[in-house]
């Protein structure tokens, strides 16, 4: 197995054994008529006076996986968090431009961030289960949203854990075992199950595998491919092969001369990795980036 983030150019031939689904199947997976789930137009994020990322315009088609790649500090995560208004929590952060979910302005004054976050789930970089039982971790969201019926909760917990491919590993001590007693990879799948339990339409993942070993990473990637059928997924990753394996479309960000991140190129994943339009993208995906 080749290294996950090697300096060699990534060619279709090298990707093929790892690709899942195969790269060929991915190209054109998104028809031009697919509905736009998320839309960003001229979005800039400022931390105080400093522009962290500027003028991002992109569309995410429904039921697809889009990967954000690019060097550290280029604003990938910042853009990601515009889509569930988690940037609102950072003191001094301002989002400019227009962000839409199903064609509606997410930042309209009448929209409450909590409503957005119920529709758009977020999986964090480091697994962060609550210090409570596996069951309570998954039931947390539905409970807070008013679900009191035990049978319904049991059902949601089982369904979410099955979807997150964790059910078989934890079904015997759902209520006894703390979420923190699981392995790192299991914890991350628990966090995914916790997100699925609130029945979101979009799932944002912020480098969800960066704290995991390769086997656990593979499991999460398989999961992403399965979840695509029902959800729209945005994933930030430092691992280019991961982007190639799981995503339909890839957005490449980098840092401009002005130290602000910007979107260089957005295209079908196959195109980004084999025949990108921009020289900067070419340099980055082929490992020639400083």
């Amino acid at each position, binding site marked *: 197995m080749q290294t996950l983030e090697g300096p060699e150019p990534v060619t279709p031939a090298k990707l093929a054994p790892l690709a899942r689904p195969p790269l060929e199947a991915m190209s054109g997976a998104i028809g031009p008529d697919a509905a736009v789930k998320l839309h960003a137009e001229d979005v800039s994020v400022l931390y105080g006076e400093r522009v962290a990322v500027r003028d991002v315009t992109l569309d995410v088609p429904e039921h697809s996986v889009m990967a954000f790649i690019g060097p550290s500090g280029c604003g990938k995560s910042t853009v990601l968090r515009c889509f*569930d208004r*988690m940037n609102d929590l950072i003191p001094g952060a301002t989002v400019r431009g227009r962000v839409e979910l199903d064609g509606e302005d997410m930042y309209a004054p009448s929209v409450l961030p909590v409503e957005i*976050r119920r529709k758009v789930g977020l999986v964090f970089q480091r697994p962060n289960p*609550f*210090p409570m039982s596996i069951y309570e971790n998954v039931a*947390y969201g539905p409970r807070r949203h008013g679900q009191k019926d035990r049978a319904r909760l049991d059902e949601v917990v089982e369904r979410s854990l099955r979807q997150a491919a964790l059910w078989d590993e934890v079904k015997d001590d759902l209520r006894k075992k703390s979420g923190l007693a699981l392995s790192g990879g299991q914890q991350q799948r628990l966090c995914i199950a916790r997100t699925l339990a609130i029945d979101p339409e979009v799932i944002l993942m912020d480098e969800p595998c960066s704290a995991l070993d390769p086997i656990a990473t593979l499991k999460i990637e398989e999961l992403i491919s399965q979840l695509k059928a029902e959800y729209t997924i945005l994933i930030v990753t430092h691992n280019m092969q991961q982007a190639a394996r799981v995503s339909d479309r890839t957005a490449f960000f980098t840092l401009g001369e002005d130290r602000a991140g910007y979107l260089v190129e957005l295209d079908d994943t196959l195109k980004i990795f084999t025949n990108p339009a921009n020289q900067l993208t070419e340099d980055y995906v082929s490992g020639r980036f400083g």
Partner: protein
Amino acid sequence: MTTVESSLSRAQPGLRARLDVPRRITLAAALVVIGAVALLLGFIVWRGLQLFVASGVPVAQIFTTAWQPDPLSAGTNYGLLPFIGGTLAVMAVAAVIATPLSVGLALFLAEVAPGWARRIVQPAMEVFVGIPSVVYGWLGLVVLVPYLRTQFGWMGFATGFSWFAGSLVLSLMILPTITSISYDAFVVVPADMRSASLALGTTRWQAIRHVVLPTAATGVATAIVFGLMRAAGEALAVQMVIGNAPVIPTSLARPVTTLTSQITLDMSDATGTWNEALWTMGLVLLIISLTFVLIIRRLGRRSTPA
């Protein structure tokens, strides 16, 4: 491993001895403290038991209610129940008053307050701690007690000196203790946990109520016990407002007394068996404190595996 070590010590013969110096200094400090605590405990236990050993007062007698300590008058009885009951009662009500305020303040500081508010409240808390207890007692004596007497006489505050006055003064004194320890318990809850809750579409209050509070629960419990411990030990301020009546506490409006205030009150007059009884009261106080220490340690153990 061993070969590396031995070759090093051959190279510098004095090194091992010099490396040992910090260990010896710290060990000496530890031994001094352990020795002092052991001597203190031993002394109080030994003196505290003289009432039973030397004077032959039956142990059961301290669990009676009559306090007739003067050996010069006929028919002595060393019932400590009013003092034990008074201490526990004054302490408990003080905790009931102080806990919601302190935990609320700590939550405000840790979760809600903007930076400037924190910069005002934290020094204010330190001032609170720094005020000598006699000042609290004085304020209680000249402000609180007359106020209770004149405004709440209809509720039974005949003199103003009362269980409630003692508890109220104490609650102010333990407020900073409970606040600062609970604050620490709240701020160590990882920011990740709050974000995780918010990302699930919960409100900030839900995140606090269902994630921060349960996660910090043992820390908050520890804070309350520390507060109680401080309350049990406080003598001066309480003595000034409590009325010092050796009776079992039955009404918040009536005077009661505590172990500490009775010891300070009696220590200049007490001789012989009376004096021994005061030592026994000290021993009882020590047992109450040790119980709290045990509770804190138990709480600390329970929180570690999480």
